[in-house]
């Protein structure tokens, strides 16, 4: 693992934690996009450019649509309420990141080896080939997900606007 990989993994974890812990929904959405962007770079470095392209396309399409509808549904809280909720959340879920760190340390110390000869990621053809020829069905599935997202926004967002 190079220094760049370590930096990317750290950036991904930091961005993910920021996404979950930030007090503003908008910042949270930005955090998620940032996490996704870092994951995309990691995927490129892992020789999986098509997975990276897919990650980007999903995050720019469906996730954005779902977030627009969700944020529109949420009643804004006062600053005091937000701070209180944030404190409560840390109290309730402190053990989750702690568990992840402990498990990580245990894995490093035990040096658990993969008992298999694993397949490495392959990058064959171009993105058009992969999306249109190899994963054509998934592409249509993604179109269906996007359509569902659009209807979600229409159904849930429109009413809020009226109110």
């Amino acid at each position, binding site marked *: 693992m190079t220094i760049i990989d370590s930096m990317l993994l750290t950036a991904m974890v930091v961005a993910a934690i920021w996404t979950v812990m930030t007090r503003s929904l908008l910042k949270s959405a930005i955090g998620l996009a940032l996490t996704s962007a870092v994951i995309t770079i990691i995927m490129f470095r892992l020789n999986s450019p098509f997975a990276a392209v897919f990650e980007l396309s999903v995050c720019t399409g469906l996730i954005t649509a779902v977030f627009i509808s969700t944020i529109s549904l949420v009643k804004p809280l006062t600053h005091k309420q937000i701070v209180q909720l944030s404190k409560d959340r840390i109290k309730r879920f402190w053990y989750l990141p702690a568990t992840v760190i402990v498990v990580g340390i245990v894995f490093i110390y035990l040096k658990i080896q993969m008992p298999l000869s694993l397949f490495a990621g392959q990058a064959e053809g171009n993105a058009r080939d992969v999306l249109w020829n190899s994963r054509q069905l998934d592409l249509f*599935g993604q179109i269906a997900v996007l359509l569902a997202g659009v209807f979600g926004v229409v159904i849930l967002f429109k009413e809020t606007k009226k109110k």
Partner: protein
Amino acid sequence: MPSLFILIPIFGIIILNLPLGRLLKRCAFWYAFVLFSLQIILAIFHNPFFWSGALEAISTFFSVKFTIDYLGFLMLLSIGIVCLSSLVVSRYAITDEEERFNFINLLIIASIGMCGIVMVKDIFSLYVFLEVTAVASFILIAFDKGKMALEGAFKYIVLSTIATIMMLSSIALLILVSGGTSFSLIAAALKISGPNIIVSLAVVLFLCALFIKGGVVPFHGWLPDAYSTAPAPASVLLAGIITKVCGIYTLIVLVTSVFGFNEAIGSMFLFVGTLSVLVGAFAALGQNNFNRMLAYSSISQIGYIILGLGTGTALGIAGAAFHIFNHAIFKSQLFVNAAAVRVATGTKNMDDMGGLSAKMPVTGATSVIAMLSTCGVPPMAGFWSKLIIIIALWRSGHFAYGVIAILASLLTLAYMLSMQRRVFFGKVGKGLENVREANFGFSAVSIALSAITIAAGVFFPAIFNKFLMPLAEMFLK
């Protein structure tokens, strides 16, 4: 040509939403009606010309080939029937034309997702279509935009996201082991690699994810809220087919065709199935809300399906598949009945009802038929599927589970009779003197579904030969 099940609905939705005035929106109902009716006809007769043939015009731009087996036909038939029922109910339950149009679009998308799940033979494509169905389901649950509906949808989103993470992690591990995503490739790789920690982790993660999707105890937290808060046509769809296709059907396919059945998986299914049967039945006994009672009843019935699967025998799995079909029919009908009662009385609380059978004869009579099928009373269809499951448990040596399954039928009888007594029998409830039969749509759907339940029971030998024998032979292979 099976690809038309994906292509026609997608292009249809796009065309229906073109800005060409109200005419297209008014066509949406009939478009969906024809679509689901055709699906039912094609699934019943499974004409080789359609299922094996290819149209040159389509294959030039859509090269994906599908292979459908007998289990697939049974599921496509169930999907068609439940979607058609939900569509007809929506015509009468959703009064606003614009809202109804949006609902129909989501219904078609959900059916695309479910048909995709049934037809694919690739684990990543399976995940994609599970997500298509899940996203449509979130919105259908929150459709009414009430506080409870949003809460129900939120719970489903959270648990579904956990299931998604588990599935993706499992897929990643399976790709590491097999180097591909097709069912056959993974199955072959798992056979070669034998049991090891990565394979076991991948299998357990995927199975737990499917337990969440199927609402199996102890992963059922989202199900009662989702079923009871969704609008009537959406609850018919969710309870009738979505959980069965996303959770249980997928479980059967993956265990029989990809992961392979072993003793550990069998024991886990038998334990989880029994837990679901009992927890669902006991929880249903304590409910006042009509829809919540039906939701817990669903959990209990899903337990029977898992028990059948847990036997690992061809007979047990065929029985489980037949119970999926039966449960799709009679549970959809009970939710249609619940919706009709809700529309007529304005309440879901069973303690505020009573004597509705006299005021709503069609709803009352059809709910008795669905109740008898749920309890496994002959000659209803539910009797045969439960009988097959119990015989399979007995023949595979799981006597204790067989006895529990039989005794749990008494619990089913208890909560269903309690529901009948509180809702349909006895004195007419206060303020319900002027209640009338629900409108034509509810009655028509209830009668049609009752007819299917009776016909599937009475003509069981024909169904046994047409679907179940080939199914059992398929699983034996």
